[in-house]
């Protein structure tokens, strides 16, 4: 009985990286429980606190090392659970809040989930396409959807393994009905790839931005909407423009927004065929093409039915 408690206390410190003497634990527990008749749980707490003080540790250090069970994303169905997941970062989104360091979509072979890395957690940045173990993250429900929060007690560890992400491949035809203003020729932080505003990264301060070309927009087929990001490769395929020619245009016009105006002219309201993976509101573009001709067969069929 006593030995169990001794071992448990020792191992809690051990998994946080600290060795403490078992005899010392036993002596102190024994004193409280058998001499002073203190309830066992109070005694355990008191002894634990004693060692924390001795080692000058904050109590979180021990909590953090409490093992949370490894689960698959599809198993995450209630808020407030501490879990560990092995995931690949599918997409990073722009953070909507000062308090959020990174937000995006992570996936494993059973599904995808939104993740939020809180600024207070002090974690290093994750990168799109890389795989990680997120340990001790907390499940949460936001606007009716599950997400995972990475806080101070969580851990992020990059892994070699390339996690396969489940997704439903779809093909849609729709019009590009909206283009967001943070599109066109943009600059990203060289450290964390975040999109910069005035060459200031919320995490890394003033940096020398790396140019990139993209369109963030909405494709709509009259029945559903899909948020899409067209990257440099997609845009080059559609319009012939790449980062280099976009930079040239910006230099010649002395105005970066001329690139967005130019792309808008070619793309806004145009019908596109996109194949990719549907993940919630997002359609991750795999292949995108303009619709280049009218489907006369459909036209004839409609005329027959109407």
């Amino acid at each position, binding site marked *: 009985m006593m030995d169990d408690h001794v071992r448990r206390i020792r191992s809690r410190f051990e998994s946080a990286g600290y060795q403490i003497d078992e005899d010392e634990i036993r002596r102190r527990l024994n004193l409280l429980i058998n001499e002073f008749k203190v309830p066992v749980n109070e005694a355990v707490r008191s002894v634990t606190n004693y060692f924390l003080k001795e080692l000058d540790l904050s109590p979180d250090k021990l909590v953090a090392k409490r093992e949370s069970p490894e689960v698959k994303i599809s198993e995450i169905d209630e808020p407030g659970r501490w879990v560990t997941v092995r995931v690949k970062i599918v997409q990073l989104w722009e953070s909507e809040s000062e308090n959020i360091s990174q937000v995006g979509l992570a996936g494993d072979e059973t599904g995808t989930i939104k993740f939020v890395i809180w600024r207070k957690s002090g974690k290093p940045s994750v990168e799109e396409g890389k795989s990680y173990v997120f340990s001790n993250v907390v499940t949460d429900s936001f606007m009716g959807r599950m997400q995972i929060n990475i806080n101070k007690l969580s851990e992020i560890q990059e892994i070699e393994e390339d996690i396969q992400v489940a997704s439903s491949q779809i093909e849609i035809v729709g*019009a590009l009905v909206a283009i967001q203003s943070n599109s066109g020729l943009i600059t990203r932080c060289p450290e964390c790839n975040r999109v910069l505003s005035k060459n200031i990264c919320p995490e890394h301060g003033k940096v020398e931005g790396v140019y990139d070309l993209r369109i963030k927009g909405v494709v709509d087929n009259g029945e559903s909407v899909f948020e899409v990001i067209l990257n440099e490769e997609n845009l080059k395929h559609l319009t012939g423009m790449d980062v280099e020619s976009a930079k040239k245009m910006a230099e010649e016009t002395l105005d970066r927004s001329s690139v967005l105006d130019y792309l808008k002219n070619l793309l806004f309201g145009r019908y596109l065929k996109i194949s990719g993976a549907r993940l919630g509101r997002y359609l991750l573009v795999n292949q995108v093409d303009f619709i280049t001709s009218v489907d006369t067969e459909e036209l004839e069929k409609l005329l027959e039915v109407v």
Partner: protein
Amino acid sequence: MTFRREVARRIFAREFRESSHIIKGDDRYSPQYLLTPTGARCNRIFVVGTLLEKEDRGDGEFWRIRIADPTGSFSGFIGRYQPEALNSLADLEPPQYVAVTAKISVFQGETRTLPSIRPEEISASDSLSRDLWVIETARQTLNRILAMEALSTEDAKLAREIYGTDTSIYREMVRNALEIIKGELEFDREVEKDKVEEKVEKKVPGDEIIEDLEKFLEEEEFDLSDI
């Protein structure tokens, strides 16, 4: 409560003009919808048509526009609260093909209600996109007509109750729109045939454009280094 972007519905101008029933939400922040005679519930629409008029109604800060499709025209207003559209409108001169994503607003007068559009974005378009839009809008309108005839959706039932919709009128509207596109495609094909015969010894026009562009860029570069 989840945030969801409203789908841009596909409605022909004539059906839009004949719509008057507004569906309001529970509080003043919930979105408003216009229920059309064939039972489309729309808060936002997407149109590719011909910009017929743009009329300055207030020092360049408030414009009335009219956009035509094969069945009629949409009236719209662009003001300071649609900065993107206001900015883009400056480069557009009627008549011209345009693509528009717009929110719907409805004026309620003494005797009747007038639906109009508030473009969020408007941009130059082309005849291909117009054709694709007409076919897409025809298909979706026809689907609503079929649902109404079968009374298979709640909105179809509601629309029939409110408007007493005679679906044969809207079938005819869809048929006419499709016939116009079909006629134009056949005409284009004839013209293409003539062109191909002329073009045999000519270069492909696309090459010329690219050559011109390259020349232009070279010159520009030269100018820049001069400065």
